[in-house]
């Protein structure tokens, strides 16, 4: 499935590129793109692993930008 998540306080474009690179290699992730300009993450991933993936992705974002977070509804 394809999911779109909003991101908050994504301030650095280089970091967005790094996040994208790290999230893309997480297990269960088919494709991911972190759009710096629209502040959105488009994630294509296994439904069953989604929670796990989001937790990991959140951690990755914090690593590059401590203030940045993925908005999960």
């Amino acid at each position, binding site marked *: 499935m394809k999911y779109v998540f909003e991101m908050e*306080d994504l*301030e*650095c*474009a*280089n970091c967005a*590129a790094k996040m994208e690179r790290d999230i893309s290699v997480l297990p269960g992730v088919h494709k991911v*793109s972190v*759009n*710096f*300009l*629209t*502040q*959105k993450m*488009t994630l294509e991933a296994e439904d069953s692993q989604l929670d796990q993936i989001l937790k990991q992705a959140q951690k990755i974002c914090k*690593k*590059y930008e*401590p*203030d940045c977070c993925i908005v999960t509804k």
Partner: protein
Amino acid sequence: MSKTEQTYKLTKKQKKARNRIVIAGSLFLLFALLPLYGWLKFFLYLIPYGIIGWDVLKKAALNIKQGQVFDENFLMALATVGAFGCGETAEAVAVMLFYQIGELFQSVAVHRSRSSIAALMDIRPDHANVERDGILIEVDPSQVSPGEQIVVKPGERVPLDGIVLDGSSQLDTSALTGESYQRNVQPGQEIVSGCINLTGVLHIQVTNSYETSTVSKILELVENASSKKAKTEQFITKFARYYTPVVVISALFLAFLPPLLGLGPVLMWIQRSLNFLVVSCPCALVISVPLAFFGGIGGASRNGILIKGGNYLEALSHVKTMVFDKTGTLTLGHFSVSQLYPSACSSEELVELTALAEQFSPHPIAQAILQKYGKTPDANRVSHVQELAGLGIQAIVDGKSVLVGNVSLMQQHQIEAIPLENPLGSGVYVAKDGQFLGSLVVEDQIKPQAKEDLRQLKEQGISKLVMLTGDGASIANKVSSYLGFDEVHSQLLPQDKVSCVETLLHAKQDGQLLAFVGDGINDAPVLSRSDVGIAMGAMGSDAAIEAADVVLMDDSLSALPKALAIAKKTMRIVRQNIVFALGIKLLVLALSIFGHANLWLAVFADVGVSILAILNSARLLYQSSKK
């Protein structure tokens, strides 16, 4: 866009950063005026440094823990702490101050660009008035299912695609097509989401769910466009990955290698190498290049041009050959009467007689004549209508025998008709009681602006214009020479068009690209075979949106020169930014090696260049609002 400039307010975070800059800046100025020396100076300067730099230091510390050595914060911390260590206390504070000012400006520039982008995409309807159980309720457009009835009041945005059941109004389609002309809608007509209803209340039966509506498709297309990256963009991403490590490692060598070779004291070389650390962030490029592409694609969408990716925008700027399908692309795609040649009666009589005889025929030519007549012909005046296959029609009108058809029909009845010379369309000859009355020409008319639009394409550097058509050679040649085409291929079957385009693809030089422009009907194979497939008239046609790389919302050709201009401008700005940002950075690196650059210059090369590059790219976002 002046509106966004006026209403832009700093975010909480930005305000905090501004306040810190003011406090640290004042302290810094104060200390700079006092005669301070030695340890006192060192400790006093630590105060503004702490105020302005604590978050950078904190992030740097966190990064070290996580093994993130090539992070901007870490490098800035290292550079300023290094400067403190070398005794350049004032410089260390100034650099951190300058860096934070730059970051603040950059943040504001990014936020502004983001709100301009949001404004560009502001075609999303926020509500729909749906009729349920006789009551009108306001719901989210996604809550409405096909088949339901909605009401759109004047001033509201049409939330969903549908068919008008009741009411008539004028629509402003400018958000979708970029053309600010108003369209009339009446009951029975299709209506596209995203338009603004101007004058009357409309009752609409919804045909598509929100997810499949025109607005959703446009937004999805524009948002996803950034995932199809242009070659230049890919290059930047790759470059950014290697640039920082290379610069940082060079800094290490610069700090310790020359002193080992006896070229001066370690301290001097460390100072020089600190500059390297400051310019090691590729941010200027990483932000401004995607922003330029996004701005180009966004600006194009505002003009009714949907570009499916940065790669196609880049390709568009290299197009030298443009191939056009004739019917529906260069012409209006429907027949109309273009010329009247009465010889034995008036024009009005000629049209009326033809319309009377042709009134029962479903043929497109007959429809064109009826349209020209403009009234409903009196069926009682006509009898004994006979369709003569391949020839025309024979009928009794007002008790007299009337013949309407081609030259062969006239010849069969030994009527001396004045032949039309090389008509651009089909000639229709009319005779009454064995006497020739005159003729009319019915043709698929060339779009009114076509000649001018094609001339503009030539002006913009398209070196070869090619026309493909299934029509006969005589019509094809006339149309092509009238419009100024360089090459024409006529009598083509649909499959011939693909092989024709393939021959053209082989014939062109390396680095020059070919674009095919069609109306999206029956030309999907050609659209996908060419370098850039452009489909026009997408208002409502799913097939066209799917098959093409670039979709023009309108039927008008004038979007083409606009699309080329936007593509070229985008690429120009991208190139400017790359050359400028890399040029300044390399220059500062070179100057640093020979000791001619200080930290101030280095910070400018980092954040200053970033801001200028972002502002340069942002020009693309504003062009759409200019007319």
